[in-house]
Structure formats: C-alpha cells, structure tokens
C-alpha cells in the first residue's frame, strides 16, 4: 500500500471537511446544511460526474467494452447481496427481512464515495476510463431485486412483507436518471459542449464536493450519536469488513475483464461502497418492516466514513497490486 496516497487522501480538503462535519455533529453543534441545498449539491455532483463521464467516453471511443463493464457491474451488484445476507444471518441475530434490507445497500453503491475516489485518482495521477460512471448507474436495480428475492423466500409463512416491489420508483429514481442522462448529454456534445460548461461543472467541482462532504459528515455524526442503541459489535464489524471483502471481489472482476489500474480501483470502490440515498427509500416502500435505523446507520455512519478515509487508499493499493 502506497502510504503517500493514503496520507494525501487523509489531509485533502474533502476528507477534512467530512471530519469537520462529523466532529461538529458529535459535539451537538447546530451547524446544518439546509435540505434543499444538500439536494442541490448532490444534483450538481451527479450532473457533473455523469456529463464528464460521457465526454470522456466520447473522446476515448466507445465500443464493446462499455457493455462489458456495465454487465460486470450489474452482475456484481446482483451477486453481492446473497453474500452480505449470509454473513449477516450467520454473525448477527437479525431476521430475514432486516438482513435482506441491509444486503440491498451493500450490493448497491455510494456515488459520493465514487466521486471522492476519482478525485484521489486525479490527485495521484492515475488514469481511469470515463465509462465507469455507467457502471455506477447499473448497480442499483440488480441489488434491490436480489434482496427482495432473499426477503420473500419464506416470507409467505409469517404473513410479513406486504410492501409492493417498487420497480418503477427504483429504475426511474432521480439519481440514476440524472447520471445516465448527463452521461448521454456528455456523449452527444463531446468536447465542444464540455468547453461550454466546464467553468460550471469542472472548475468548482472539488470545492462543491467539500461542502457536500461537510454535510455528509454532519448527517453521519448525528447518526453516530444515536449509535449505541442500534449497533451491536457484530453489526459494526460487518460494516467494516464487508467493504474490503466486496472491494476485493470487485477488483478481481475488474482485473478479469481487463480494466486498467484506475478502472480496477473504481470497480473496487463501487462494490465496496453502500447506498444511503436511493436504496433506503426503496426499502421503505418494498420492505417496510425492516428497521431504517439499522441500515441507515450502518451504511452512512460506519461504511461511508471507513471508505472515505481508509478504504479509498486501500482499494487503490489493491488495484495497483492486481494490475
């Protein structure tokens, strides 16, 4: 593991602002980013990362390999939930429904972790394919589908789980639509379009990421303050070992389909990260009996900070080692 990258990551403004938010919330400061603004920041990040991915894909040519990447990503996100589910059922006392709901989160991805990883790769001068954004967009639906199958098996006997499968809501959820849409816009307008709006989507990008991570730190810190009630050691452990486990599987897959170092690192990051926006809302609709406090805390207050600080340099090291 390259300690230079690890240290560089830890003292970069985005990670430090996340730490600031975390500390402020744990100290019960009333610092808060208004909800509408947090949503706007995330729309901005989605739009920018999607668009830049599309422009990069347009530049580097665009062929069979994008389908390979998307296919591998979708497959990974369908196969990870059973692993997470089995681990949870073995090591914790969670019921079928709660375990399935958590598993859905770990099959899916966190786009902000992905963005922070691209920033770390940029800082370390490691190249990655623009099409990886398309992989990110493909990893939500399969994870939810698989988790619902897990929850429903045997669900009939206890009369539970009367929620309706939220296919439409999930497939057309705002983040995915914006990510894919901006990717297509970037693909269509290419460099010309990019030059037009670069002062908006590229120059201030890292600064906006700082502000967004400040808010993420605040939210994670507020979750952590209530942690004692919900987080058993076994669950906490899961939130910490599941990411590198998933990351290795993702990295191996990336190496197998021939991605370059940056691509392997990003596929690592995607499999290692857990959703905390789209999947929680989908789980409320599909598995309303599952406890939101469990899956939100785990994904937002344990896995996300782990990935942002320790995880990203680790996954880059894994990628270096695999390629």
């Amino acid at each position, binding site marked *: 593991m390259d300690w230079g990258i690890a240290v560089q990551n830890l003292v970069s403004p985005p990670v430090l602002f996340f730490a600031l938010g975390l500390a402020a919330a744990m100290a019960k400061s009333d610092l808060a980013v208004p909800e509408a603004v947090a949503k706007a920041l995330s729309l901005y990040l989605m739009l920018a990362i999607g668009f830049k991915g599309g422009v990069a894909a347009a530049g580097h040519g665009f062929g069979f390999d994008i389908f390979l990447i998307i296919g591998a990503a979708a497959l990974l996100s369908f196969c990870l939930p059973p692993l997470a589910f089995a681990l949870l059922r073995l090591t914790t006392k969670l019921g079928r429904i709660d375990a399935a709901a958590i598993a859905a989160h770990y099959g899916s991805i966190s786009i902000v972790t992905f963005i922070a990883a691209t920033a770390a790769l940029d800082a370390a001068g490691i190249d990655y394919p623009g099409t990886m954004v398309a992989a990110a967009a493909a990893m939500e639906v399969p994870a939810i589908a698989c988790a619902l199958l897990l929850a429903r098996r045997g669900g009939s006997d206890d009369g539970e789980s009367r929620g309706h499968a939220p296919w439409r809501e999930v497939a057309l959820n705002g983040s995915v639509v914006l990510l894919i849409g901006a990717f297509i816009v970037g693909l269509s307008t290419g460099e010309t379009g990019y030059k037009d709006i670069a002062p908006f989507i590229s120059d201030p990008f890292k600064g906006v990421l700082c502000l967004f991570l400040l808010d993420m730190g605040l939210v994670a810190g507020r979750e952590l303050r209530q942690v004692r009630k919900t987080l058993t050691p076994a669950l906490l452990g899961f939130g910490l070992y599941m990411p590198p486990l998933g990351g290795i599987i993702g990295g191996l897959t990336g190496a197998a389909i021939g991605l370059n170092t940056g691509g392997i690192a990003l596929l690592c990051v995607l499999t290692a990260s857990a959703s905390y926006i789209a999947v929680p809302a989908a789980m409320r609709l599909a598995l*309303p009996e599952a406890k939101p406090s469990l899956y*939100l805390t785990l994904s937002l207050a344990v896995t996300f900070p782990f990935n942002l600080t320790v995880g990203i340099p680790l996954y880059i090291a894994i990628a270096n080692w695999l390629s």
Partner: protein
Amino acid sequence: METYPKKRLSIIIEAPFLNRLLDLLDDLEVPGYTALPALAGRGGRGAWRRDSLSSDAGRMVQVLIVLDQEKVPPVLTAVRKVLDRQMGIVTISDVEVLRPDKF
C-alpha cells in the same frame, strides 16, 4: 352564519409513501386533500429531525382530508389496506364547514 358538520381526517405518514397515498386518494371518492411537510417527529419507531436525514426514508408528511362522516370508514379501510401498519398516525376530529356541497 350557517355551518355543516364534517369530519377532518389527519394521516401522518412517511414521505416515501406519500405519492402512493395521494394516488390512492385520487382513486377513492375523496373530495380533496392537503399535504403539509413536517420538520421532526417521534413515535414508536424512534425520533427523527429533518436535518439529520439524507434520504426521504423516515421523514413524515401530514395529509388532511375534510369529508363526510359516512365516507370516513370506506376511506380508512382502503388506506389501511394499502399502507397497513406502516401508515403512521391517523386521527379523526369534528369540524364545521360553510359550503357543504364542496365536500
């Protein structure tokens, strides 16, 4: 000023269910409704405050429906069938209205 007795139904429900509830109410014979946002709450499943959530999950919305006494049971039955135990808090109270034909 003559007034007419009606019922006021208040349903406090999680934000991700709101669209489903409103779609259902649009199908039912409900004269109208109004949804109001909430800032914070506590109930059986714990407390939440709006600024501590990044997702819609857990956030609440209050839906008010003014309607005829007779329409209350069918509406409630339909609502409960779809939303079941997660549907949050339902209260019913008496109100007077001025124009009975609107409801």
